[in-house]
């Protein structure tokens, strides 16, 4: 049963990933990405990571993919790429490089026995059937509390940065009208 779930979901992961890079239409790529993300969530469930699987569905499969689809439709780039746009030499080089990377990682996986290292240095996973939200939260708010706070700082910076990026280019587009407003100071004064 475990093997069946793994091979079905693993095949879905790889098919989705290949669909992302093969699809000419960005909308199709986003939907294949959704297939990959949901299949990975199932693999998380199989590895006693129920909360991570739920967050994967909520954050990745919902928020991030919807954000991608939103931008694709907002920009109106869902028409597909011109097929003569490809550089054949670059594509061959990329595939060769990919094979080299894959070989390197597989040699590392095969040659090392990492899984026999120290066990449960930060706490065990907890009972498999009841989930491990409590253990995870305890570790997150004790061992990793500094990283957690830095995550909050990172999110604030990202939000401010994206707002600044989105506003600045829009401001430049209608800069004359903004200056025209600035020359009429009496219009907005409360007096």
């Amino acid at each position, binding site marked *: 049963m475990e093997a069946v779930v793994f091979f079905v979901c693993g095949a879905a992961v790889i098919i989705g*990933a290949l669909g992302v*890079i093969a699809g000419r239409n960005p909308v199709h790529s986003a939907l294949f990405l959704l297939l990959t*993300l949901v299949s990975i969530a199932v693999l*998380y469930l199989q590895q006693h990571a129920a909360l991570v699987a739920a967050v994967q569905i909520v954050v990745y499969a919902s928020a991030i993919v919807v954000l991608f689809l939103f*931008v694709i439709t907002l920009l109106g780039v869902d028409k597909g790429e011109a097929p003569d746009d490809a550089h054949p030499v670059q594509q061959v080089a990329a595939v060769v490089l990919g094979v080299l990377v894959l070989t390197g990682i597989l040699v590392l996986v095969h040659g090392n026995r990492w899984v026999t290292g120290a066990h449960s*240095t930060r706490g065990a996973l907890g009972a498999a059937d009841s989930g491990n939200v409590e253990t995870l939260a305890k570790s*997150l708010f004790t061992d990793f509390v500094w990283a957690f706070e830095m995550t909050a700082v990172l*999110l604030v910076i990202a*939000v401010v940065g994206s707002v600044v990026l989105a506003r600045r280019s829009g401001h430049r587009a209608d800069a004359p009208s903004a200056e025209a407003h600035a020359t009429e100071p009496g219009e907005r004064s409360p007096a």
Partner: protein
Amino acid sequence: MSALAYPDHITATYYLVLAAILFTIGAVGLLVRKNTLVMFMCIELMLNAANLTFVSFANALNDISGQVIVFFTLVVAAAEVAVGLAIIVAIFRRRQSVNADDVDLLKG
């Protein structure tokens, strides 16, 4: 890779190999595609491969920290997507294109 010949029990090696394949597909896609939106999706694939590795090691070592780190990766991915898509929208407003080859001002 003799462990892969007996699929009656799924060990961590299976997940690591799957994550390696997923990472490679993402890396190749990042190099091959020119649509910046698809390139971003390939970065998400690579981040997911790393997350799958973290969860696999958490399961293999019975250690919770692998699952905690997945949350940080996820937050970084979300922040990266927000900022990156804002940059793509800003570039699109200037150049009417999301093709990476069109942004070649520094090429000379």
